[in-house]
């Protein structure tokens, strides 16, 4: 250990190894991914963000949103549910349900046939779900197993599936983030489609969320005298946050593009490496009896 060149070469060699393993090899794998059309979809995913949203991403970056908001949904596991969609052979299906150990077969059959799909098994393994599905189908019933990604982020409604490398292909700079002082924004566009909410929230987050610690971005807005008629863009603020009479708060282009970016943040496409809950075609959407899989969107904020 008395030769500088020896140390230099040794350190060089070990570092080249890590560079190969942690930079080069991953670059060959995930760095070379291309947008691709998932099964049953004709549009390649992810698509490029529309221009206004891409501009908004620059505002997002320059305001340092990433220091409080992550854009990564974490998944801890998965489970299956079985959905019962009705039957043509009530007798046989009732027996099959009984065999599966499901109580109240008659009511279930009636409910499934007349009103809506019924959730008959929850939190089961793939094998159990498949077995139940097969048994019911053999009895002349229509049943379907449903894949459920599980994890705190899913149950909180922050995402429908975990985030994977494919999701970020069109992003630069990637804002995955390492901190969750605020809620995750992977799916904020699906959770909060309302632009007015976002504008108010940016102007002063306490308007929309009591006790929020998000900084107010009032410098992204103009306060100006109302002209002949109030601007259609002006924020509708509650009295305690409203500007003095005769003035109005109008978002600058920065605020508008930022909101467009937030609205464009949606991860609702299933991928091979990140499957997500997909309802069988025959299940009516938005039904109140729909299984818990249709994670109720959006409750990262308390009601006002």
């Amino acid at each position, binding site marked *: 250990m008395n030769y500088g060149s020896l140390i230099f070469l040794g*350190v060089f060699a070990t570092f080249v190894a890590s560079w190969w393993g942690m930079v080069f090899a991953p670059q060959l794998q995930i760095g070379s991914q291309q947008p691709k059309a998932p099964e049953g979809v004709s549009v390649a995913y992810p698509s490029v963000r529309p221009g206004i949203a891409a501009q908004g991403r620059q505002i997002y970056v320059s305001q340092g*949103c990433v220091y409080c908001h992550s854009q990564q949904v974490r998944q801890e596991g998965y489970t299956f549910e079985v959905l019962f969609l009705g039957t043509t052979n009530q007798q046989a299906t009732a027996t099959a349900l009984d065999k599966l150990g499901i109580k109240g077969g008659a009511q279930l059959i009636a409910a499934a046939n007349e009103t809506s799909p019924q959730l008959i098994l929850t939190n089961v393994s793939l094998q159990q779900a498949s077995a139940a599905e097969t048994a019911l189908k053999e009895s002349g019933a229509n049943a379907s197993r449903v894949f459920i990604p599980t994890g*705190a982020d899913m149950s909180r409604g922050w995402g429908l599936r975990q985030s994977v490398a494919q999701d970020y292909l069109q992003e630069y700079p990637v804002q995955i983030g390492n*901190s969750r002082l605020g809620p995750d924004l992977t799916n904020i566009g699906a959770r909060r489609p309302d632009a007015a909410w976002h504008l108010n929230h940016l102007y002063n987050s306490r308007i929309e969320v009591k006790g929020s610690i998000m900084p*107010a971005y009032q410098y992204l807005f103009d306060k100006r005298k109302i002209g002949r008629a109030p601007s259609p863009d002006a924020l509708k603020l509650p009295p305690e946050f409203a500007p003095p009479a005769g003035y109005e708060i109008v978002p600058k282009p920065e605020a508008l593009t930022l909101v467009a970016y937030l609205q464009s943040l949606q991860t609702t496409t299933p991928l091979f490496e990140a499957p997500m809950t997909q309802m069988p075609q025959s299940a009516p959407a938005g039904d109140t009896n729909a299984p818990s899989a249709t994670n109720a969107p959006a409750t990262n904020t308390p009601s006002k």
Partner: protein
Amino acid sequence: MNGSTSTSSPAEQSREDLVRDIDSSTAAPLALMFFASLAWLVVSALLALVASVKLHSPTILANNSWMTYGHVKPAANDTFVYGFASQAGIAIALWMLCRLGSVRLFAPISATIAALFWNIGVALGIFGVLGGDTTGFEWLEFPTYGSAIFFASFVVLAVIALVTFARRSVRELYPSQWYLLAALLWFPWLYTTARLLLVWHPVRGAMQFLINGWFASGLMTLWLGSLGVAVLYYFIPKLTNGGQLYSRSLATFGFWTLAVFGPWAANLYQGVPLPAWIVSVSIAATVLTLVPLVATAMNLWHTRLAPAFDCSRIWFTTSLVFYVIASLCNIAIALCPISALTVAAESVQVITLYGFVGFALFGAIFHIAPRITGADLACGSRGKITWWCTMLGILFFSGAMFIGGMAQGHSLRDGPPYADSAKMMNGLKPFLRASTFGLAFLLIGNIAIFGSVAKMLRACCCRCCCFGDKSKNVKLKPAGAAR
């Protein structure tokens, strides 16, 4: 190994003259770098304090683009790392390379100019970050105009360090020199890779996240960590054991295991949007850094024979303890994803940056500054204030953030399904307040060491009225408590 030949200098020159000669050759660049780095340290603590206050009182300094959390927070981090730790670290590295090689600093004027440009680069970078001109990658926020100047100055200083090293008259190498040599290779490689693949010729998608994490991990363990360990390897034997290191083979083992495993860690934990194998490799590498930690810490702990609680030694003992704590926390965080995405990371960051690296650099500055300025050894009240305030600051901040982070992780993970984040953050507020308290302590400590060194430099300045050619004009008096 046939004994030290540290007397390969001309025979007629006494050791004392030689040492003074070496010290005075480093005086000009080091004076500038110490002053500037400690000034950045104060700025960094101020910015961190502002950022911390904003987390529980968002209306303070609100509605100002320059002072919004997303600008202040990265500015505080970057000021600490590039303004203070890297600058003071490379200054100390230059001094240690001179002393260990028994050689005068090569091209001190160029080093001073490079140091000047370093600070211009950092200032421009911080200015850009505060103004919202950021690359968007953590620890790499500096816009190109700042980072280019900063990095060019780094290269000049690194070349000066390597040339000084090559001209050494003591040929045998001491462990500190291994670490400095490696760090001077690691940092430019990490930095250019990250800038190249993230900013100039960006890679796609999640690769950016991986490279960012790999850089951040390397910045902490390979660059700042190596500087810190080099300082500890130099000062702990020197100040507490008559220059006798416990074991050279342990040091070799620790060094090479770090070189092999360290660069594979990338600050990842299960759940990030990267394929499982990348995450697993990173976690396994992080856990394997336990080996160099044990080797290095054991070696230094055995070296520390005399009780080390006088004002010049306590810095390094404290730093050693925090080195162990920080590395263990790092491993724990990699293995236990409950702390992922929470403020617990900030706790480990402060233990690493202030506890391990900071204490080591503070101690080295308190040791070196009197020698290059001819002032009395700073064993005064300011040193004590710095130690106590930094200590209390770390304990308050890290304790609060660690407990708070665990609570946050718990509510992120197991909280009621629809728990809203405003409620979560309100639960975190007591911890955030305590962390502000801790940062206030850190700020006082930083001001104290800045004042202390500034006073030494001022006295020195008054004596010779010129930083540039001190070696001609001033006869340095021996430092008070030098052994």
